Protein backbone atom coordinates (compact mmCIF):
# COMPACT_ATOMS: atom_id res chain seq x y z
CA UNK A 1 0.00 0.00 0.00
CA UNK A 2 1.36 3.37 -1.02
CA UNK A 3 -0.14 6.60 0.14
CA UNK A 4 0.89 10.01 -1.10
CA UNK A 5 -0.64 13.03 0.58
CA UNK A 6 -0.43 16.60 -0.64
CA UNK A 7 3.04 16.00 -1.96
CA UNK A 8 4.84 19.09 -3.22
CA UNK A 9 8.37 19.15 -4.58
CA UNK A 10 10.23 22.16 -5.83
CA UNK A 11 13.54 22.12 -7.63
CA UNK A 12 14.56 25.75 -7.48
CA UNK A 13 12.02 27.55 -9.63
CA UNK A 14 10.53 24.31 -11.01
CA UNK A 15 7.41 23.04 -9.32
CA UNK A 16 7.76 19.33 -10.07
CA UNK A 17 4.94 18.11 -7.80
CA UNK A 18 2.00 20.25 -6.88
CA UNK A 19 0.00 18.89 -3.93
CA UNK A 20 -0.23 15.45 -5.43
CA UNK A 21 -2.34 12.90 -3.55
CA UNK A 22 -3.14 9.30 -4.44
CA UNK A 23 -3.07 5.78 -3.14
CA UNK A 24 -1.94 2.55 -4.70
CA UNK A 25 -3.57 -0.55 -3.27
CA UNK A 26 -2.45 -4.15 -2.93
CA UNK A 27 -3.65 -6.73 -5.41
CA UNK A 28 -3.68 -4.50 -8.42
CA UNK A 29 -1.39 -2.82 -10.88
CA UNK A 30 -1.61 0.93 -10.60
CA UNK A 31 -0.39 2.83 -13.62
CA UNK A 32 1.16 6.19 -13.24
CA UNK A 33 0.66 7.97 -16.49
CA UNK A 34 1.73 11.37 -17.69
CA UNK A 35 3.70 13.23 -20.34
CA UNK A 36 7.43 13.95 -20.11
CA UNK A 37 8.20 16.15 -17.16
CA UNK A 38 4.88 15.46 -15.45
CA UNK A 39 6.58 14.41 -12.24
CA UNK A 40 6.33 10.62 -12.36
CA UNK A 41 9.97 9.91 -11.61
CA UNK A 42 10.04 12.67 -9.02
CA UNK A 43 7.12 11.06 -7.19
CA UNK A 44 8.85 7.68 -7.13
CA UNK A 45 12.11 9.26 -5.94
CA UNK A 46 10.29 11.00 -3.12
CA UNK A 47 8.46 7.80 -2.14
CA UNK A 48 11.75 5.94 -1.64
CA UNK A 49 13.33 8.91 0.10
CA UNK A 50 15.97 9.76 -2.49
CA UNK A 51 14.59 13.26 -2.68
CA UNK A 52 12.97 15.04 0.22
CA UNK A 53 9.52 16.55 -0.35
CA UNK A 54 9.11 20.29 -0.02
CA UNK A 55 5.86 19.50 1.81
CA UNK A 56 3.45 16.62 2.17
CA UNK A 57 4.17 12.98 2.89
CA UNK A 58 4.66 9.72 1.06
CA UNK A 59 4.03 6.56 3.04
CA UNK A 60 4.74 2.96 2.22
CA UNK A 61 2.72 0.51 4.33
CA UNK A 62 1.93 3.44 6.60
CA UNK A 63 5.53 4.48 7.22
CA UNK A 64 8.01 6.83 5.68
CA UNK A 65 10.48 4.87 3.62
CA UNK A 66 13.47 5.85 5.77
CA UNK A 67 11.75 4.38 8.82
CA UNK A 68 11.76 0.91 7.32
CA UNK A 69 14.74 -1.13 8.40
CA UNK A 70 15.86 -3.59 5.71
CA UNK A 71 13.40 -2.11 3.21
CA UNK A 72 14.21 -4.49 0.36
CA UNK A 73 12.01 -7.07 2.10
CA UNK A 74 9.08 -4.66 1.84
CA UNK A 75 9.69 -2.50 -1.19
CA UNK A 76 11.40 -3.09 -4.50
CA UNK A 77 12.12 -0.19 -6.81
CA UNK A 78 13.48 0.22 -10.29
CA UNK A 79 14.10 3.91 -10.82
CA UNK A 80 16.88 4.34 -13.35
CA UNK A 81 18.33 1.18 -14.82
CA UNK A 82 21.42 3.11 -15.90
CA UNK A 83 22.31 4.03 -12.32
CA UNK A 84 24.76 1.19 -11.73
CA UNK A 85 28.50 0.84 -11.55
CA UNK A 86 29.51 -0.20 -15.08
CA UNK A 87 32.59 -2.10 -13.91
CA UNK A 88 30.66 -4.53 -11.76
CA UNK A 89 29.20 -7.76 -13.08
CA UNK A 90 25.46 -8.32 -12.95
CA UNK A 91 25.95 -10.95 -10.29
CA UNK A 92 28.18 -8.77 -8.11
CA UNK A 93 25.84 -5.80 -8.50
CA UNK A 94 22.96 -7.80 -7.05
CA UNK A 95 25.22 -9.49 -4.50
CA UNK A 96 26.24 -6.08 -3.12
CA UNK A 97 22.61 -5.11 -2.58
CA UNK A 98 21.73 -8.55 -1.26
CA UNK A 99 24.57 -8.59 1.27
CA UNK A 100 23.19 -5.55 3.13
CA UNK A 101 20.02 -7.56 3.79
CA UNK A 102 21.63 -10.95 4.41
CA UNK A 103 20.04 -12.25 1.23
CA UNK A 104 22.00 -15.23 -0.05
CA UNK A 105 23.68 -15.55 -3.42
CA UNK A 106 21.38 -18.44 -4.35
CA UNK A 107 18.53 -15.94 -4.44
CA UNK A 108 20.66 -13.71 -6.68
CA UNK A 109 21.25 -16.62 -9.03
CA UNK A 110 17.57 -17.53 -9.14
CA UNK A 111 16.59 -13.95 -9.96
CA UNK A 112 19.16 -13.61 -12.73
CA UNK A 113 17.66 -16.74 -14.28
CA UNK A 114 14.15 -15.39 -13.81
CA UNK A 115 14.95 -12.19 -15.70
CA UNK A 116 16.86 -14.07 -18.38
CA UNK A 117 20.36 -12.81 -17.58
CA UNK A 118 21.90 -16.11 -16.45
CA UNK A 119 24.22 -16.23 -19.47
CA UNK A 120 25.68 -12.79 -18.80
CA UNK A 121 25.62 -12.98 -15.00
CA UNK A 122 29.39 -12.67 -14.79
CA UNK A 123 29.79 -10.04 -17.51
CA UNK A 124 30.38 -6.41 -16.65
CA UNK A 125 27.27 -4.22 -16.74
CA UNK A 126 29.11 -1.61 -18.80
CA UNK A 127 28.65 -3.83 -21.84
CA UNK A 128 24.92 -4.36 -21.29
CA UNK A 129 22.21 -3.05 -23.58
CA UNK A 130 19.46 -0.85 -22.18
CA UNK A 131 17.07 -3.79 -22.15
CA UNK A 132 19.56 -5.95 -20.26
CA UNK A 133 20.08 -3.22 -17.67
CA UNK A 134 16.33 -2.91 -17.36
CA UNK A 135 16.09 -6.64 -16.65
CA UNK A 136 18.86 -6.32 -14.08
CA UNK A 137 17.02 -3.42 -12.44
CA UNK A 138 13.86 -5.50 -12.25
CA UNK A 139 15.85 -8.33 -10.67
CA UNK A 140 17.21 -5.86 -8.10
CA UNK A 141 13.69 -4.70 -7.32
CA UNK A 142 12.56 -8.27 -6.65
CA UNK A 143 15.57 -9.29 -4.51
CA UNK A 144 13.80 -9.20 -1.17
CA UNK A 145 10.52 -10.62 -2.48
CA UNK A 146 8.80 -7.34 -1.59
CA UNK A 147 5.08 -6.72 -1.17
CA UNK A 148 5.35 -3.32 -2.83
CA UNK A 149 6.97 -2.88 -6.22
CA UNK A 150 7.70 0.49 -7.86
CA UNK A 151 8.88 0.59 -11.44
CA UNK A 152 9.72 3.69 -13.44
CA UNK A 153 9.17 3.03 -17.15
CA UNK A 154 10.04 -0.66 -16.84
CA UNK A 155 9.54 -1.57 -20.49
CA UNK A 156 11.91 1.13 -21.68
CA UNK A 157 14.34 -0.52 -24.07
CA UNK A 158 12.81 -3.97 -23.86
CA UNK A 159 12.14 -6.03 -26.97
CA UNK A 160 8.71 -7.47 -27.78
CA UNK A 161 9.40 -10.63 -25.79
CA UNK A 162 10.65 -8.53 -22.88
CA UNK A 163 7.58 -6.30 -22.88
CA UNK A 164 5.35 -9.34 -22.90
CA UNK A 165 7.34 -10.79 -20.02
CA UNK A 166 7.13 -7.61 -17.92
CA UNK A 167 3.38 -7.41 -18.46
CA UNK A 168 2.97 -10.99 -17.29
CA UNK A 169 5.23 -10.33 -14.34
CA UNK A 170 3.23 -7.27 -13.24
CA UNK A 171 -0.02 -9.21 -13.51
CA UNK A 172 1.44 -12.09 -11.50
CA UNK A 173 2.82 -9.82 -8.79
CA UNK A 174 -0.55 -8.11 -8.40
CA UNK A 175 -2.44 -11.41 -8.38
CA UNK A 176 -0.21 -12.50 -5.51
CA UNK A 177 -1.60 -9.57 -3.56
CA UNK A 178 1.28 -7.17 -4.00
CA UNK A 179 1.04 -3.46 -4.61
CA UNK A 180 2.44 -2.63 -8.02
CA UNK A 181 2.97 0.94 -9.16
CA UNK A 182 4.46 1.52 -12.56
CA UNK A 183 4.95 4.66 -14.54
CA UNK A 184 4.82 5.24 -18.23
CA UNK A 185 4.14 7.98 -20.72
CA UNK A 186 2.55 5.53 -23.16
CA UNK A 187 -1.12 4.77 -22.74
CA UNK A 188 -0.99 1.83 -25.12
CA UNK A 189 1.53 0.17 -22.86
CA UNK A 190 -0.77 0.58 -19.88
CA UNK A 191 -3.95 -0.64 -21.47
CA UNK A 192 -3.00 -4.29 -21.25
CA UNK A 193 -1.23 -4.27 -17.92
CA UNK A 194 -2.90 -1.89 -15.58
CA UNK A 195 -6.02 -2.11 -13.42
CA UNK A 196 -6.08 1.41 -12.14
CA UNK A 197 -4.79 4.54 -13.82
CA UNK A 198 -3.53 7.75 -12.31
CA UNK A 199 -3.04 10.43 -14.89
CA UNK A 200 -0.77 13.25 -13.87
CA UNK A 201 0.36 16.37 -15.61
CA UNK A 202 2.53 19.20 -14.36
CA UNK A 203 2.79 17.55 -10.96
CA UNK A 204 -0.94 17.37 -10.40
CA UNK A 205 -3.39 14.50 -10.48
CA UNK A 206 -5.59 15.10 -13.53
CA UNK A 207 -7.72 11.98 -13.47
CA UNK A 208 -7.96 8.71 -11.68
CA UNK A 209 -10.03 5.79 -12.82
CA UNK A 210 -10.11 2.07 -13.31
CA UNK A 211 -8.89 1.05 -16.73
CA UNK A 212 -12.33 -0.40 -17.45
CA UNK A 213 -14.16 2.85 -16.65
CA UNK A 214 -11.71 4.83 -18.67
CA UNK A 215 -12.37 2.66 -21.70
CA UNK A 216 -16.14 2.87 -21.14
CA UNK A 217 -16.21 6.60 -20.69
CA UNK A 218 -14.72 7.18 -24.05
CA UNK A 219 -16.87 4.76 -26.01
CA UNK A 220 -17.92 6.80 -28.97
CA UNK A 221 -20.23 5.38 -31.61
CA UNK A 222 -21.24 2.31 -33.54
CA UNK A 223 -20.43 1.63 -37.15
CA UNK A 224 -22.95 -0.49 -39.07
CA UNK A 225 -22.56 -1.75 -42.62
CA UNK A 226 -25.36 -3.33 -44.52
CA UNK A 227 -26.25 -3.79 -48.24
CA UNK A 228 -29.69 -2.38 -47.25
CA UNK A 229 -28.28 0.67 -45.49
CA UNK A 230 -31.02 3.02 -46.64
CA UNK A 231 -33.76 0.87 -45.08
CA UNK A 232 -31.68 0.21 -41.97
CA UNK A 233 -31.05 3.97 -41.54
CA UNK A 234 -34.80 4.55 -41.56
CA UNK A 235 -35.45 1.84 -38.99
CA UNK A 236 -32.79 3.08 -36.62
CA UNK A 237 -33.90 6.69 -36.87
CA UNK A 238 -37.46 5.57 -36.19
CA UNK A 239 -36.14 3.89 -33.02
CA UNK A 240 -34.83 7.26 -31.87
CA UNK A 241 -31.16 6.88 -32.66
CA UNK A 242 -29.09 9.50 -34.33
CA UNK A 243 -27.68 8.17 -37.55
CA UNK A 244 -25.32 9.65 -40.07
CA UNK A 245 -23.97 8.18 -43.27
CA UNK A 246 -20.45 7.32 -44.03
CA UNK A 247 -18.86 6.78 -47.44
CA UNK A 248 -18.96 3.17 -48.67
CA UNK A 249 -22.42 2.58 -47.28
CA UNK A 250 -21.67 2.70 -43.59
CA UNK A 251 -23.92 4.16 -40.93
CA UNK A 252 -22.56 5.82 -37.83
CA UNK A 253 -24.96 5.44 -34.92
CA UNK A 254 -24.99 7.02 -31.51
CA UNK A 255 -27.46 6.70 -28.66
CA UNK A 256 -27.77 2.93 -28.68
CA UNK A 257 -25.79 -0.27 -28.38
CA UNK A 258 -24.80 -3.08 -30.69
CA UNK A 259 -27.34 -5.57 -29.30
CA UNK A 260 -30.32 -3.30 -29.93
CA UNK A 261 -29.19 -2.50 -33.45
CA UNK A 262 -28.61 -6.19 -34.25
CA UNK A 263 -32.05 -7.15 -32.92
CA UNK A 264 -33.83 -4.41 -34.88
CA UNK A 265 -32.09 -5.47 -38.09
CA UNK A 266 -32.98 -9.14 -37.52
CA UNK A 267 -36.65 -8.30 -36.99
CA UNK A 268 -36.74 -6.56 -40.39
CA UNK A 269 -34.60 -9.29 -42.00
CA UNK A 270 -31.95 -6.73 -42.90
CA UNK A 271 -28.55 -8.38 -43.36
CA UNK A 272 -25.68 -6.89 -41.37
CA UNK A 273 -22.13 -7.04 -42.73
CA UNK A 274 -20.44 -5.20 -39.94
CA UNK A 275 -21.41 -3.98 -36.48
CA UNK A 276 -18.58 -2.32 -34.55
CA UNK A 277 -18.49 -0.50 -31.26
CA UNK A 278 -15.94 2.28 -31.77
CA UNK A 279 -14.04 3.79 -28.87
CA UNK A 280 -11.69 6.65 -28.89
CA UNK A 281 -8.33 4.96 -28.72
CA UNK A 282 -6.92 5.16 -25.26
CA UNK A 283 -4.10 7.13 -26.80
CA UNK A 284 -6.58 9.80 -27.91
CA UNK A 285 -8.15 9.87 -24.48
CA UNK A 286 -4.82 10.29 -22.85
CA UNK A 287 -3.71 13.01 -25.22
CA UNK A 288 -6.98 14.81 -24.67
CA UNK A 289 -6.68 14.60 -20.91
CA UNK A 290 -3.06 15.57 -20.69
CA UNK A 291 -3.12 18.15 -23.41
CA UNK A 292 -3.63 21.13 -21.16
CA UNK A 293 -1.22 19.71 -18.67
CA UNK A 294 1.60 18.90 -21.05
CA UNK A 295 4.76 20.81 -20.44
CA UNK A 296 6.12 20.09 -23.86
CA UNK A 297 4.02 19.89 -26.97
CA UNK A 298 4.73 18.70 -30.44
CA UNK A 299 6.43 21.50 -32.30
CA UNK A 300 8.61 22.35 -29.34
CA UNK A 301 6.41 25.10 -27.99
CA UNK A 302 6.79 25.27 -24.27
CA UNK A 303 3.72 26.32 -22.34
CA UNK A 304 4.13 27.59 -18.85
Amino acid at each position, binding site marked *: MIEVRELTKRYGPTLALDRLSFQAHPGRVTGFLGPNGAGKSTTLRVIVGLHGPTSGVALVNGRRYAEISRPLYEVGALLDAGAVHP*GRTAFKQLACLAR*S*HRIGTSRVKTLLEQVGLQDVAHKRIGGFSLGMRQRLGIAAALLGDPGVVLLDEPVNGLDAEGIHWVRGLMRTLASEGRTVLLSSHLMSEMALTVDHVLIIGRGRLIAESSMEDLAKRFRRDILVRSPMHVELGGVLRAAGMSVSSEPRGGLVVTGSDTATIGDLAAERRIPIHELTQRSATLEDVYLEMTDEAADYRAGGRRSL
Partner: protein
Amino acid sequence: MTLQTAPSRNASAETTVSVLASVMDVAAAEWLKLRTMRAAWVVWAGAAVSTLIGLIIIMGHVGSYDQATPGQQASFESADPAVAVMPLVAFFIGTLSALVMTTEFSTGSIAPSLVAVPQRRTLLAAKSVVVTCVALAGGVLFASLSQIGAMLILGDRPAPLNPWTHWWEAVPPAAGTAVTTLATGLVALGLGAVLRSAAATVAVIGALTLVVPMFAHVLPEPVHLWVASVLIPNLAPQIAGAESAYLLAPPVAAAVLAFYVVVTLGAASLSFSRRDS
Protein backbone atom coordinates in the same frame (compact mmCIF):
# COMPACT_ATOMS: atom_id res chain seq x y z
CA MET B 1 15.40 -7.27 13.10
CA THR B 2 15.14 -8.40 16.69
CA LEU B 3 17.85 -10.55 18.09
CA GLN B 4 16.18 -11.25 21.36
CA THR B 5 12.71 -10.61 22.69
CA ALA B 6 13.16 -11.45 26.35
CA PRO B 7 11.04 -9.02 28.38
CA SER B 8 13.94 -8.20 30.70
CA ARG B 9 15.87 -6.66 27.88
CA ASN B 10 15.27 -2.97 27.50
CA ALA B 11 14.17 -1.54 24.21
CA SER B 12 16.99 0.91 23.65
CA ALA B 13 19.66 -1.74 24.16
CA GLU B 14 17.87 -3.84 21.60
CA THR B 15 17.75 -1.06 19.03
CA THR B 16 21.44 -0.36 19.61
CA VAL B 17 22.19 -4.01 18.96
CA SER B 18 20.06 -4.11 15.83
CA VAL B 19 21.50 -0.82 14.53
CA LEU B 20 25.00 -2.21 15.04
CA ALA B 21 24.06 -5.47 13.37
CA SER B 22 22.65 -3.59 10.41
CA VAL B 23 25.71 -1.31 10.17
CA MET B 24 27.89 -4.41 10.03
CA ASP B 25 25.73 -5.98 7.32
CA VAL B 26 25.83 -2.79 5.30
CA ALA B 27 29.59 -2.56 5.89
CA ALA B 28 29.94 -6.08 4.49
CA ALA B 29 28.03 -4.92 1.41
CA GLU B 30 30.26 -1.84 1.14
CA TRP B 31 33.34 -4.03 1.40
CA LEU B 32 32.02 -6.12 -1.48
CA LYS B 33 31.43 -2.92 -3.48
CA LEU B 34 34.99 -1.77 -2.87
CA ARG B 35 36.42 -5.13 -3.88
CA THR B 36 34.46 -5.05 -7.14
CA MET B 37 35.55 -1.51 -8.00
CA ARG B 38 38.40 -1.68 -10.47
CA ALA B 39 39.53 1.90 -9.88
CA ALA B 40 40.33 0.86 -6.31
CA TRP B 41 42.93 -1.61 -7.55
CA VAL B 42 44.51 1.09 -9.70
CA VAL B 43 44.81 3.30 -6.62
CA TRP B 44 46.40 0.45 -4.61
CA ALA B 45 48.89 0.02 -7.42
CA GLY B 46 49.55 3.78 -7.25
CA ALA B 47 50.33 3.52 -3.54
CA ALA B 48 52.67 0.58 -4.16
CA VAL B 49 54.46 2.36 -7.00
CA SER B 50 54.87 5.54 -4.97
CA THR B 51 56.38 3.50 -2.12
CA LEU B 52 58.85 2.04 -4.58
CA ILE B 53 59.68 5.46 -6.04
CA GLY B 54 60.11 6.86 -2.52
CA LEU B 55 62.57 4.09 -1.73
CA ILE B 56 64.46 4.75 -4.97
CA ILE B 57 64.73 8.42 -3.99
CA ILE B 58 66.06 7.34 -0.59
CA MET B 59 68.53 5.12 -2.42
CA GLY B 60 69.74 8.11 -4.45
CA HIS B 61 69.99 10.19 -1.30
CA VAL B 62 72.07 7.47 0.36
CA GLY B 63 74.22 7.24 -2.78
CA SER B 64 75.08 10.92 -2.68
CA TYR B 65 75.71 10.62 1.06
CA ASP B 66 78.28 7.95 0.37
CA GLN B 67 80.10 10.25 -2.05
CA ALA B 68 79.99 13.32 0.21
CA THR B 69 82.80 14.50 2.47
CA PRO B 70 82.43 13.77 6.21
CA GLY B 71 81.73 17.48 6.79
CA GLN B 72 78.84 17.45 4.30
CA GLN B 73 77.62 14.13 5.67
CA ALA B 74 77.17 15.66 9.12
CA SER B 75 74.57 18.08 7.74
CA PHE B 76 72.71 15.53 5.56
CA GLU B 77 68.96 15.36 5.91
CA SER B 78 67.72 12.08 7.34
CA ALA B 79 66.44 9.45 4.90
CA ASP B 80 63.05 9.24 6.57
CA PRO B 81 60.35 7.35 4.64
CA ALA B 82 57.73 9.11 6.77
CA VAL B 83 58.69 12.17 4.70
CA ALA B 84 59.74 10.60 1.40
CA VAL B 85 57.00 7.95 1.03
CA MET B 86 54.06 8.24 3.34
CA PRO B 87 52.49 11.55 2.22
CA LEU B 88 52.05 10.11 -1.27
CA VAL B 89 50.70 6.85 0.12
CA ALA B 90 48.27 8.85 2.26
CA PHE B 91 47.21 10.75 -0.84
CA PHE B 92 46.48 7.51 -2.69
CA ILE B 93 44.60 6.01 0.24
CA GLY B 94 42.69 9.28 0.57
CA THR B 95 41.78 8.99 -3.11
CA LEU B 96 40.61 5.43 -2.58
CA SER B 97 38.49 6.48 0.38
CA ALA B 98 37.00 9.37 -1.55
CA LEU B 99 36.04 6.95 -4.35
CA VAL B 100 34.04 4.88 -1.85
CA MET B 101 31.66 7.84 -1.80
CA THR B 102 32.10 9.73 -5.08
CA THR B 103 31.84 6.69 -7.36
CA GLU B 104 28.29 6.22 -6.09
CA PHE B 105 27.44 9.74 -7.18
CA SER B 106 29.27 9.64 -10.51
CA THR B 107 27.68 6.35 -11.60
CA GLY B 108 24.29 7.09 -10.02
CA SER B 109 24.55 3.86 -8.02
CA ILE B 110 23.85 5.96 -4.93
CA ALA B 111 20.15 5.57 -5.83
CA PRO B 112 19.96 1.76 -5.51
CA SER B 113 22.32 1.99 -2.51
CA LEU B 114 19.99 4.37 -0.71
CA VAL B 115 16.91 2.40 -1.72
CA ALA B 116 18.51 -0.58 0.04
CA VAL B 117 19.74 1.50 2.98
CA PRO B 118 17.64 4.64 3.33
CA GLN B 119 19.09 5.40 6.77
CA ARG B 120 21.81 7.67 5.47
CA ARG B 121 23.80 7.79 8.69
CA THR B 122 23.89 4.00 8.69
CA LEU B 123 25.22 4.01 5.14
CA LEU B 124 27.83 6.65 6.00
CA ALA B 125 28.80 4.73 9.15
CA ALA B 126 29.18 1.53 7.14
CA LYS B 127 31.36 3.29 4.60
CA SER B 128 33.42 4.75 7.46
CA VAL B 129 33.94 1.26 8.89
CA VAL B 130 35.22 0.03 5.54
CA VAL B 131 37.46 3.08 5.06
CA THR B 132 38.81 2.71 8.61
CA CYS B 133 39.81 -0.90 7.97
CA VAL B 134 41.24 -0.25 4.53
CA ALA B 135 43.08 2.98 5.34
CA LEU B 136 44.54 1.63 8.57
CA ALA B 137 45.60 -1.62 6.93
CA GLY B 138 47.07 0.32 4.00
CA GLY B 139 48.78 2.76 6.35
CA VAL B 140 50.33 0.00 8.44
CA LEU B 141 51.32 -2.01 5.38
CA PHE B 142 53.01 0.79 3.47
CA ALA B 143 54.53 2.40 6.57
CA SER B 144 56.11 -0.96 7.50
CA LEU B 145 57.21 -1.73 3.97
CA SER B 146 58.81 1.68 3.51
CA GLN B 147 60.51 1.58 6.95
CA ILE B 148 61.89 -1.91 6.33
CA GLY B 149 62.97 -0.90 2.83
CA ALA B 150 64.70 2.20 4.18
CA MET B 151 66.44 0.18 6.88
CA LEU B 152 67.77 -2.27 4.31
CA ILE B 153 69.01 0.59 2.15
CA LEU B 154 70.59 2.46 5.08
CA GLY B 155 72.36 -0.55 6.54
CA ASP B 156 74.57 0.60 9.40
CA ARG B 157 75.07 4.17 8.21
CA PRO B 158 74.87 6.56 11.15
CA ALA B 159 72.77 9.60 12.05
CA PRO B 160 71.88 12.18 10.82
CA LEU B 161 71.24 10.23 7.58
CA ASN B 162 69.86 7.26 9.47
CA PRO B 163 66.83 8.40 11.47
CA TRP B 164 67.03 5.42 13.84
CA THR B 165 69.85 3.99 15.93
CA HIS B 166 67.82 0.86 16.80
CA TRP B 167 65.09 -0.79 14.73
CA TRP B 168 62.45 -0.36 17.43
CA GLU B 169 62.81 3.39 17.23
CA ALA B 170 61.18 3.10 13.82
CA VAL B 171 57.96 1.73 15.28
CA PRO B 172 56.40 4.89 16.77
CA PRO B 173 56.91 7.00 13.62
CA ALA B 174 55.51 4.18 11.50
CA ALA B 175 52.50 3.98 13.78
CA GLY B 176 52.18 7.76 13.58
CA THR B 177 52.06 7.73 9.77
CA ALA B 178 49.62 4.81 9.81
CA VAL B 179 47.31 6.86 12.03
CA THR B 180 47.56 9.99 9.88
CA THR B 181 46.89 7.82 6.81
CA LEU B 182 43.76 6.50 8.49
CA ALA B 183 42.68 10.05 9.27
CA THR B 184 43.35 11.11 5.68
CA GLY B 185 41.07 8.29 4.52
CA LEU B 186 38.21 9.33 6.79
CA VAL B 187 38.64 13.02 5.91
CA ALA B 188 38.54 12.08 2.22
CA LEU B 189 35.38 10.01 2.72
CA GLY B 190 33.71 12.93 4.47
CA LEU B 191 34.81 15.42 1.83
CA GLY B 192 33.59 13.03 -0.87
CA ALA B 193 30.13 13.01 0.70
CA VAL B 194 30.07 16.80 0.82
CA LEU B 195 31.61 17.53 -2.58
CA ARG B 196 30.19 14.48 -4.41
CA SER B 197 32.85 14.78 -7.08
CA ALA B 198 35.96 12.62 -7.29
CA ALA B 199 37.98 15.34 -9.03
CA ALA B 200 37.16 18.01 -6.45
CA THR B 201 37.74 15.68 -3.51
CA VAL B 202 41.05 14.38 -4.85
CA ALA B 203 42.15 17.98 -5.46
CA VAL B 204 41.40 18.93 -1.84
CA ILE B 205 43.08 15.79 -0.51
CA GLY B 206 46.10 16.49 -2.71
CA ALA B 207 46.25 20.00 -1.30
CA LEU B 208 45.96 18.76 2.30
CA THR B 209 48.52 15.95 2.06
CA LEU B 210 51.00 17.18 -0.54
CA VAL B 211 50.75 20.71 -1.85
CA VAL B 212 50.18 22.80 1.28
CA PRO B 213 52.83 20.91 3.33
CA MET B 214 55.26 21.40 0.46
CA PHE B 215 54.69 25.12 0.09
CA ALA B 216 53.97 26.08 3.70
CA HIS B 217 57.56 27.28 4.11
CA VAL B 218 56.87 30.33 1.93
CA LEU B 219 55.04 31.72 4.94
CA PRO B 220 56.98 34.02 7.31
CA GLU B 221 58.64 32.07 10.07
CA PRO B 222 56.50 31.94 13.21
CA VAL B 223 53.37 31.55 11.07
CA HIS B 224 54.95 28.79 9.01
CA LEU B 225 55.69 26.78 12.12
CA TRP B 226 52.18 27.15 13.49
CA VAL B 227 50.58 26.20 10.18
CA ALA B 228 52.99 23.34 9.51
CA SER B 229 52.38 21.94 12.99
CA VAL B 230 48.68 21.34 12.28
CA LEU B 231 49.01 19.91 8.77
CA ILE B 232 47.90 16.28 8.63
CA PRO B 233 51.17 14.67 7.44
CA ASN B 234 53.20 16.68 9.97
CA LEU B 235 51.01 15.43 12.80
CA ALA B 236 52.50 11.95 12.38
CA PRO B 237 55.86 12.64 14.07
CA GLN B 238 54.17 14.83 16.67
CA ILE B 239 51.74 12.07 17.63
CA ALA B 240 54.60 9.58 17.73
CA GLY B 241 56.54 11.91 20.02
CA ALA B 242 59.42 11.75 17.59
CA GLU B 243 61.99 14.49 17.43
CA SER B 244 60.74 17.20 15.08
CA ALA B 245 60.73 20.92 14.52
CA TYR B 246 57.00 21.12 15.20
CA LEU B 247 55.21 22.48 18.23
CA LEU B 248 52.56 20.07 19.49
CA ALA B 249 52.73 17.53 22.30
CA PRO B 250 51.49 14.04 21.30
CA PRO B 251 48.03 14.30 22.93
CA VAL B 252 47.44 17.73 21.40
CA ALA B 253 48.55 16.49 17.99
CA ALA B 254 46.21 13.50 18.29
CA ALA B 255 43.37 15.84 19.24
CA VAL B 256 44.04 18.04 16.19
CA LEU B 257 43.97 14.96 13.97
CA ALA B 258 40.72 13.77 15.53
CA PHE B 259 39.31 17.26 14.99
CA TYR B 260 39.90 16.98 11.23
CA VAL B 261 38.03 13.68 11.16
CA VAL B 262 35.14 14.80 13.34
CA VAL B 263 34.61 18.02 11.40
CA THR B 264 34.62 16.39 7.95
CA LEU B 265 32.51 13.38 8.92
CA GLY B 266 30.13 15.69 10.79
CA ALA B 267 29.76 17.87 7.71
CA ALA B 268 29.31 14.72 5.63
CA SER B 269 26.59 13.44 7.90
CA LEU B 270 24.71 16.73 7.72
CA SER B 271 25.08 17.20 3.98
CA PHE B 272 24.38 13.58 3.13
CA SER B 273 21.22 13.35 5.19
CA ARG B 274 19.78 16.73 4.18
CA ARG B 275 20.43 16.94 0.47
CA ASP B 276 18.61 15.10 -2.33
CA SER B 277 20.57 12.27 -3.84
